[in-house]
């Protein structure tokens, strides 16, 4: 009989939250409302850098319908920051700034009123006396002696600096026969989640705060809210709402959260703030611009000997997650290949611009663009096939990287060989033929990524879970694991159903209320399936054991001779069930002296924090991938048509293959957006394109055919062998695209995005075709 029980893990079941989402039933954070709620709005600095001399809110407070006006004086004056645990100086942001503003959009004051029109009217009546200060917008200028100091006491605006590496760089480059170097520039891009950020705050009569929040990290939000408001964590309750996309932008507490809570407390009523798209661009996360000077060396036989990278990172006005982004970028760039001598020197610098933070890829997209462009050029100069060169130097199973990561499962080579076959690489590479104004090319790039969380300062990378059996034999999974549109809860349902031997329709997931759900670090670093999934797996196994113990007592058959499948209990080897799981649960619950049928699990991966040199096995597993991008370049117009993408990713094991493919499609399209069209354009610190009319996101019409290929290397630590896939799918896309353009027209572009006018100019003037693209910004052309 058990042979008939089909495995649930590994099947492409539809997303369990899909029907409600596509029929409009899901109540997202922005939809949430209750009677009596006030509307909040935020006053922002019109200056990139200015001292606040005085604020007078008298006129605003007098507007009929205004319930509360707050300024920095209404806060505790405490600063916060994502990395505040590392060092107090990394807590550099206030909910409302008191003395100084540091970018156009910095939070200064806020209003709660009966409706949005009244709140906006009142904002205009808050009189702020600013004393403008000199501002600086480029990291290279912020570093110069005499540059404006953005945060007191931070010399030359350098908020973070480190050297990672291994071996002896001089020896490594000394052993090289060929050395390739270049300078790469990446731009600020927005995660552009469909749902903008919102906050909804409500205080009860005893002074306890509830936030209805769209957050990827509810427990972190709880801790940071408590700290900045001077509460204990127990006085804060986070109810996590369904999210219309996160991509990292909902990891941290943003100023909107404490502002909303302070308004609600002062007004004595619930307050809701919903960001406009413009505020979403200016006041939440976007990707850090990097300037990367890179150098790689190899022997004539292709053996890579040395890699050196210098990062100059634009942190904007505040630090947010810059430290983590810089380190993730450095570690991945240094360990994509087995290079014995590596060095990454990184500087992160304040400027008077909106501040970047987490975005899918988290530093790795920037570093990988540089390394995978360098490696493509290295292959060119060595005369070695670009796929072969990668396989020769790439990571292998059961190895240790130069920075001490333990590579267990590793399908890196398979991602390249399968991609090579599926993309018809060998036929398409180096055609260099032109038909009319069209030139065609194919490029490849690869990636390493944490695949099972990332242990950071703070100790835990853990996920707890509880599974409670209901009287009808169905199961309630309670987890801190997330659903940010990536299929998380569907995977949790599949894992629990598999372990408990019940249909997926009989498993529900609760993952919202921090008063109920067990501790979980949150959704980031490809840890949701790996860590929270393992937590659910452990809890479901625990519940299964309890089910079997109860069945043993009720049936007088040894637990070791019982099996659970299709919601029924079988005696081993018998075709007919002995009883149902529902009956076992009812008999346990509904009798005198009964007991709860449930299980609990707590998973913390066997990892370590990296040291000051970047050494340490910080993740429970590592994900690998390779993407092959085929392009047709119109050399007359510079327009790049991406005609096909083959994206191959080692995910350990696909718990839901359709869900994995969805992550691959999304990552590729988002990556192509960064490669070809997306860029946040600034003029003197003013974001010029905070809307989707002028910030160009790819649409479905711009999306090429994408073939998603899943490699299953079977990770020993992952649930059913699974590793993360959410982030790594965006990482290699920009480099693969740039390498394809090089294959098509023989010009290597090192700045993103690659504008059509850059290509057109390079083709019009082949002699002067520099390897860099011009900045397309208003600022750059002044």
């Amino acid at each position, binding site marked *: 009989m058990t042979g008939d029980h089909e495995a649930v893990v590994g099947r492409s079941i539809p997303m369990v939250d899909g029907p409600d989402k596509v029929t409009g039933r899901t109540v997202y954070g922005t939809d949430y409302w209750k009677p009596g709620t006030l509307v909040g709005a935020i006053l922002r600095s019109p200056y990139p850098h200015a001292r606040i001399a005085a604020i007078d809110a008298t006129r605003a407070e007098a507007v009929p319908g205004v319930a509360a006006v707050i300024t920095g004086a209404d806060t505790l004056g405490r600063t916060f920051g994502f990395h505040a645990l590392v060092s107090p100086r990394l807590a550099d942001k206030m909910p409302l700034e008191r003395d100084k503003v540091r970018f156009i959009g910095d939070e200064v004051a806020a209003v709660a009123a009966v*409706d*949005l*029109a009244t709140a*906006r009217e009142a904002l205009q009546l808050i009189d702020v006396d600013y004393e403008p200060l000199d501002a600086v917008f480029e990291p290279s200028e912020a570093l110069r002696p005499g540059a404006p100091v953005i945060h007191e006491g931070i010399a030359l605006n350098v908020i973070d600096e480190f050297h990672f590496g291994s071996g002896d760089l001089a020896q490594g480059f000394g052993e090289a026969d060929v050395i390739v170097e270049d300078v790469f520039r990446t731009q600020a891009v927005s995660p552009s989640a469909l749902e903008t950020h919102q906050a909804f705050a409500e205080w009860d009569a005893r002074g306890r705060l509830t936030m209805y929040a769209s957050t990827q990290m509810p427990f972190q939000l709880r801790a940071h809210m408590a700290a900045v408001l001077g509460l204990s964590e127990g006085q804060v309750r986070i109810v996590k709402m369904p999210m219309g996309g996160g991509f990292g932008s909902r990891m941290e507490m943003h100023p909107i959260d404490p502002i909303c809570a302070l308004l609600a407390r002062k007004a004595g009523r619930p307050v809701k703030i919903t960001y*406009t*798209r*413009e505020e979403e661009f200016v006041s939440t996360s976007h990707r850090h611009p990097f300037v990367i000077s890179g150098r790689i060396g190899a022997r004539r036989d292709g053996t890579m000997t040395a890699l050196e990278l210098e990062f100059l990172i634009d942190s904007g006005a505040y630090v947010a997650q810059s430290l983590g982004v810089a380190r993730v970028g450095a570690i991945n760039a240094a360990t994509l290949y087995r290079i014995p001598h590596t060095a990454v020197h990184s500087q992160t610098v304040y400027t008077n611009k909106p501040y970047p933070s987490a975005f899918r890829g988290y530093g790795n997209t920037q570093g990988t663009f540089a390394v995978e462009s360098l490696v493509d050029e290295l292959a060119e100069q060595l005369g070695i096939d670009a796929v072969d060169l990668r396989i020769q130097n790439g990571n292998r199973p059961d190895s240790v990287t130069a920075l001490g990561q333990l590579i267990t499962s590793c399908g890196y080579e398979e991602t390249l060989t399968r991609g090579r076959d599926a993309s018809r690489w060998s036929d398409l590479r180096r055609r260099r033929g032109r038909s009319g104004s069209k030139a065609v090319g194919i490029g490849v790039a690869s990636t390493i990524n944490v695949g099972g969380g990332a242990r950071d300062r703070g100790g835990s990378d853990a996920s707890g879970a509880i599974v409670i059996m209901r009287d009808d034999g169905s199961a309630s999974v309670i987890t801190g694991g997330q659903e940010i549109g990536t299929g998380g809860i569907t995977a949790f349902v599949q894992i629990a159903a598999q372990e408990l031997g019940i249909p997926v329709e009989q498993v529900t997931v609760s993952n919202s209320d921090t008063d109920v759900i067990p501790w979980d670090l949150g959704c980031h670093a490809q840890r949701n399936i790996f860590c929270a999934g393992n937590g659910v797996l452990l809890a479901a196994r625990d519940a299964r054991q309890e089910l079997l113990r109860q069945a043993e007592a009720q049936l007088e058959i040894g637990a070791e001779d019982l099996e659970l499948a299709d919601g029924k209990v079988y005696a081993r080897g018998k075709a007919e069930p002995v009883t149902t799981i529902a009956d076992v649960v009812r008999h346990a619950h509904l009798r005198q002296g009964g007991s709860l049928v449930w299980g609990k699990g707590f998973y913390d991966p066997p990892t370590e924090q990296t040291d000051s040199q970047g050494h340490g096995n910080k993740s429970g597993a590592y994900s690998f991938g390779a993407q092959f991008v085929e392009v047709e370049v119109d050399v*007359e*117009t*510079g*327009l790049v*048509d991406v005609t096909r993408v083959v994206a191959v990713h080692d995910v350990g094991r696909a718990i839901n293959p359709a869900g994995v493919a969805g992550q691959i499609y999304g990552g590729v399209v988002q990556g192509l957006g960064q490669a*070809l*069209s997306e860029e946040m*354009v600034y003029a003197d610190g003013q974001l*010029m*394109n905070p*809307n989707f*009319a*002028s910030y*160009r996101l*790819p*649409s479905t*019409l*711009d999306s090429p055919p994408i073939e998603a290929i899943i490699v299953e290397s079977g990770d020993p630590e992952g649930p059913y062998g699974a590793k993360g896939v959410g982030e790594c799918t965006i990482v290699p896309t920009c480099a693969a695209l740039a390498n394809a353009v090089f294959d098509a027209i023989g010009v290597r572009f090192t700045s993103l*995005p690659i*504008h*059509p*006018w850059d290509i*057109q*100019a390079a083709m*019009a003037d082949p002699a002067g075709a520099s390897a860099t693209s011009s900045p*397309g*910004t*208003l600022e750059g*052309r002044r």
Partner: protein
Amino acid sequence: MGLITHHMAYVRPRSVEEAADALSSRPDSARVLAGGQSLIPLMKLELSQPELLVDIAGIAELDDVRDRPDGTIEIGAMVRHARLQSDPTIRRRLPLLSEVAGLVADPQIRTLGTLGGSLAHADPAGDYCMLALALDAQILTNRREIPATDFFLGPFTTPLDAGEMVLGVRLPASDDEHAFVKITRLPFDSGVPAVVVQRLDGVWRIGLTNLGHGHARARAVEAALAAGATPGEAVEHGWTDIEEITDQPVPLTYRVHMARVLTRRALDRAESRGRTSP
């Protein structure tokens, strides 16, 4: 900003006279609502805050296509893009207009947006404006007829007076060789020129969007073609007096280059396809 929070009055007149009276009642703050596919987004962005909206969707006579015996067609201001795309008279008499209408934005906008609204809005990226310019159309208002060359004065700028509204447009009909070239792919579905070419009475007419202060007529190219130049030769003429539009992220040199390339491609396409059979 996503939400329109300011208060305004709204009227839906039944006749042109009623509409004109309403507009004249608040000469500085009344705006015509003619489909709303440009005005409503501007109101959301708080770039336009009219106190009175005069919705002319209820005026039946403005939703009319008239094939006139003098070889022209007159099209009412409230004719929607979707109808321009499919209307048999227009497809037969001026197929270029149907072609242009078919690439306006997306199907939702084509269902609601109107020819008159688009002309009066005078967006530098507006494709009907360049078509009107190329064909020397007459813009018909409740007070006068204005030649297209005098109507498009710059980005979002027309000579319409307070109380004056666009009722329609008169265009010469022609099914001679024509082509419309517009890049609809990222990264630029705006900011880069689009081109219409139409042969009219044996002479090429060429209009472009997004050049200089808005729409342009490539008269030097037209003249070179009339003098016998090939498309490739002709597009080397002109383009010299084009001024930069501020607030434009795409470099001017590239836009001028694209104007040349796309004009040549349009002429090649028009010639290779020949006359459009009805």
